[in-house]
């Protein structure tokens, strides 16, 4: 029962591993970025899960409500999302430049070209 009750964490672990796998296993540079995003997203979910208090609502002071969820992780994750977006943008920009330079975004083909030059 306890294991099921913590299903959020199972999702986090699944996302994390899936993202990590994509980064490692795929040769396509764009797919790697996608994997990286999934990987980061799992951490966002993890943080938000920490912040959730059983039975708590949004942290807005209102009549009759005494339990609130912790708002701090949300704020932190907003920052982390910004960082993630910047990383993705930069990564994709690099992929475009690589495509211009090599004419491909497949890692193995890039390796072959570098081996020749």
């Amino acid at each position, binding site marked *: 029962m306890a294991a099921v009750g913590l299903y959020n964490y199972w999702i986090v672990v699944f996302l994390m591993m899936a993202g990590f796998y994509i980064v490692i296993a795929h040769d396509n*540079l764009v797919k790697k970025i996608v994997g990286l995003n999934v990987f980061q997203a799992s*951490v966002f979910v993890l943080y938000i899960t*920490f912040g959730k208090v059983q039975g708590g609502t949004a942290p807005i002071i209102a009549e009759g409500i005494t339990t609130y969820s912790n708002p701090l*992780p949300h704020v932190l994750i907003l920052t982390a999302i910004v960082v993630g977006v910047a*990383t993705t943008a930069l990564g994709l920009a*690099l992929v475009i430049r690589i495509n211009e330079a090599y004419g491909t975004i497949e890692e193995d083909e890039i390796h072959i070209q570098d081996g020749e030059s």
Partner: protein
Amino acid sequence: MTEHLAALQVVIPLLCAPLCMLVRYRDWSWIVALFGSWACLIISWLLLQLVMVDGIISYHMGNWAPPLGIEYRIDKVSAFVLLIVSAIGAVITPYARESVRAEFGVNRVYLFYTAYMLCLCGLLGVTITGDAFNLFVFLEISSLSSYVLIALGKDRRALTAAYQYLVLGTIGATFIVIGIGLLYAETGTLNMADLAKRLADQPLSRTIGAAFGFLVVGISLKLALFPLHLWLPNAYTYAPSVVSAFLAATATKVAVYVLLRFLFSIFNVKLSFGVMPLDSILLVLAVIAMFAASAVAIFQTNLKRMLAYSSVAQIGYMILGISFANVNGLAAGIIHLFNHALMKGGMFLALGCIFYRIASVNINDMAGMGRRMPWTMGAFVVGGLGLIGVPLTVGFISKWYLVLGALERDWWFAAALVLLSSLLAVVYIWRVVEVAYLKPVPEDAPEIEDAPPAMLIPTWILIGASVYYGINTDLTVGVAKQAAQQLLGAG
């Protein structure tokens, strides 16, 4: 004014970055960057003086009291690292003018200075902050800007190198975030001092253990600890000359600082080295790094790549010092942070001078370089002697304390290994010396002058400092010993 020094340390380069972007006229952005980096140096020097006299400086960002608000916290360790980073920045900026113009073209230089200022800001921020999550943010500022800086390299392989670094760096950063998140879940605070206090009272739980693991792996990726160093050689090889010098001298150093901060200040010695067997793990990895990376360096034809592998080996020395977990060992690690920044920075700058003249850093093009560019090659050789650890250079001081730390820990075999591994440095440095001094200048080689003074002087400032601090160790050993005592005392 003085009470806001801590904030200015980060704010000045942060403001200089967009300013560089706006001032595109000729290389006025260079002047902005020059102002920014020198201001940082002055501030960090003042901060070090303050810290040595008054002890820890705590600055509350926006006047929000910690542990809720973000705190900037400067103790001896961070003040020392701040000085290293800003000093390297201040020396490299004057050098950058000629080199960057030659490698990017006048129209694009402002892009370089923008990213450079952001990177400086990030590195200084990582060092100065007393808040764990803030540390992550600054780490990403510095990392993202360094991906950009590396991608600016002329060779197209710079792009793939930057991409590879981006992927691995982001994984490392994400690991760090997970670790910080787990710590927050366990303790409910993000302030480092507060974290340390709460962790000291708590028994080891699985959450803390997991946080510890994630953090150590994540930081090790950032500092290129063997075998997580794969991003480093390509990145340093294909980055523009200035960037290689700057990153080699600062980025990994700051990452080592972060490791120190987490292992000793946030977790404590008992947890890091008693409950967790991190000392033996670090010892083994460091020794492998020292030998494997040095051995690989011997076989490189690209000299920048050779220095990059040598960096991996030198990081091994720092980590080895940390793994001893005693005052001498830790001091050796901290001293080597400083010393290696000087030597490696200077050597990369020397290679930059060569690249400026002959557009190559391949060993086969170095024939007779000792005669063609005597001052530049001289700097390279003196820096190389430092890497070997010849007395009267800083490398000797590092080795001295490292061996002392090993003997104190009764790990005499580690002491012997430190010295044996420096023999590998003899091989890879002397290979270059032989080609540069004992091979005749090729017949078809064009007449070249030595590098312009604007590049030679900064190179020799770093190299000269690497000799000066090998003789006068008041600053380095003095600060490093106190810093080590403070780190160990906290545990």
